[in-house]
């Protein structure tokens, strides 16, 4: 193997700046997409357990369709397919305001919302049916029962699988490079293009992802212990 290493490419020139920019974009994209995914996931996950059939079917079709199609296809769909259908002024505004970023955010959020929904549904279904019946017997409406009884308990049950899913979202944000969002993987490739030092650039990107994922996992393990419901959750996972 005749490869000469030159690690200084990572801090000389603009590389360091690019990596930092990429990291910030990755975090920004993931955080916004996570909010969207959590909102969609909680809504559709809860709707899948309600006693009203039309609402349940709407939620099921959302989850089954978006979850079972590759994220890359959704990226292309939201970036290339949808904007031409929007009204002209909105299109102009979008393409002047980083359309690729918003398309990536929607693609990530809607895709992971469908996957979150599964996590939340199983959390809700892990709660004994009698709790719901008891809250109705106490005179709460269905909505109140969900808001005050079911969801607070379910959200604590889903911390471990929810963390897993959030890390998947973070890692999947790298797919946004296909529609030219300048996130971490994109910047790694850019360093490689400018310096022709593939191994160094890829090592830097890989290490940043690893550190990010491992530290989030460590923090969440603490949160998990803090929010564990005594007697319901055995150490580390849902009982």
């Amino acid at each position: 193997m005749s490869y000469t290493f030159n690690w200084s490419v990572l801090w000389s020139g603009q590389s360091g700046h690019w990596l930092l920019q990429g990291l910030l974009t990755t975090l920004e994209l993931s955080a916004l997409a996570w909010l969207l995914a959590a909102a969609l996931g909680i809504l559709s996950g809860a709707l899948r357990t309600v006693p009203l059939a039309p609402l349940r079917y709407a939620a099921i079709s959302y989850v089954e369709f978006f979850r079972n199609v590759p994220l890359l296809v959704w990226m292309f769909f939201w970036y290339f397919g949808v904007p031409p259908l929007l009204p002209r002024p909105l299109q102009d505004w979008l393409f002047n305001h980083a359309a690729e970023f918003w398309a990536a955010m929607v693609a990530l959020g809607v895709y992971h919302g469908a996957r979150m929904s599964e996590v939340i549904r199983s959390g809700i279904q892990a709660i004994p049916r009698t709790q719901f019946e008891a809250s109705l017997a106490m005179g709460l409406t269905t909505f109140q029962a969900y808001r005050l009884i079911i969801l607070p308990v379910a959200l604590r049950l889903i911390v471990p699988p929810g963390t897993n899913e959030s890390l998947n979202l973070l890692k999947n944000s790298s797919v946004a490079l296909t529609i030219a969002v300048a996130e971490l993987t994109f910047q790694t490739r850019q360093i490689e293009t400018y310096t022709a030092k593939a191994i160094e650039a890829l090592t830097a990107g890989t290490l940043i992802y690893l550190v990010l994922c491992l530290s989030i996992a460590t923090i969440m393990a603490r949160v998990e212990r803090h929010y564990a419901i005594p007697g319901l959750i055995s150490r580390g996972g849902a009982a």
Partner: protein
Amino acid sequence: MDLSVIVNNWNFLIVQGLIGFGPFIGGTLRLSIPAIVLGFVLGIFIGLARLAEARWIRVPATAYVEFFRGVPLVMVIFWIWFIIPQLLRLPIPEYGVALTAFVIFEAAYFGEIVRAGVQSVSRGQVEAATALGMTTTKTMTYVVLPQALRNMVPSLVTQMIVLFKDTSLASIIGYVDLTKAAQIVNNREIKPFQLYLFIAVVYWICTYSMSRVAQRLEHRRVAA
């Protein structure tokens, strides 16, 4: 909605893109089926290595799994894309790069499934097999693995579906799968909405039928 773009390019999208027959070496199925089989085989070794008594086997296997589960697949594809030609001093076709990347990456996930499956087999089974005079290898192949495999079926199928969807990422290094085929057609016809929605439906039909088969298998397992 004008669907003529799909009808006119049906052969290229389905026969070339999805199945893999045509002028290009490509195809989603031609990549995903070997990737699933090889990834699972490597995953069995990694899963068993994680459960090994010897530290020098267990620790590297654990590190392997933790590493690949903490890194995006796109990154792994780029690694293989740059590293393998450097190491072997010869250009590797996209198919080889993509297949290697998927097998290495997904083996970490399959490994976790195998580990969980083996751990779900009760300890008494192993003790009974040992008491009968079976060697460790025999215990594994005749007693533990067949039962573990049955417990693994639901999560295995989920992972296969994930891998099937992930193969779309091979298009970023130029492998002509279903996604790349749609891109190629779109560059000529400029009908992104119809094309990408169409391939979304094709992917959905494949993955949804896989999950239905899995449900049926599970019911049969419960009934038996």
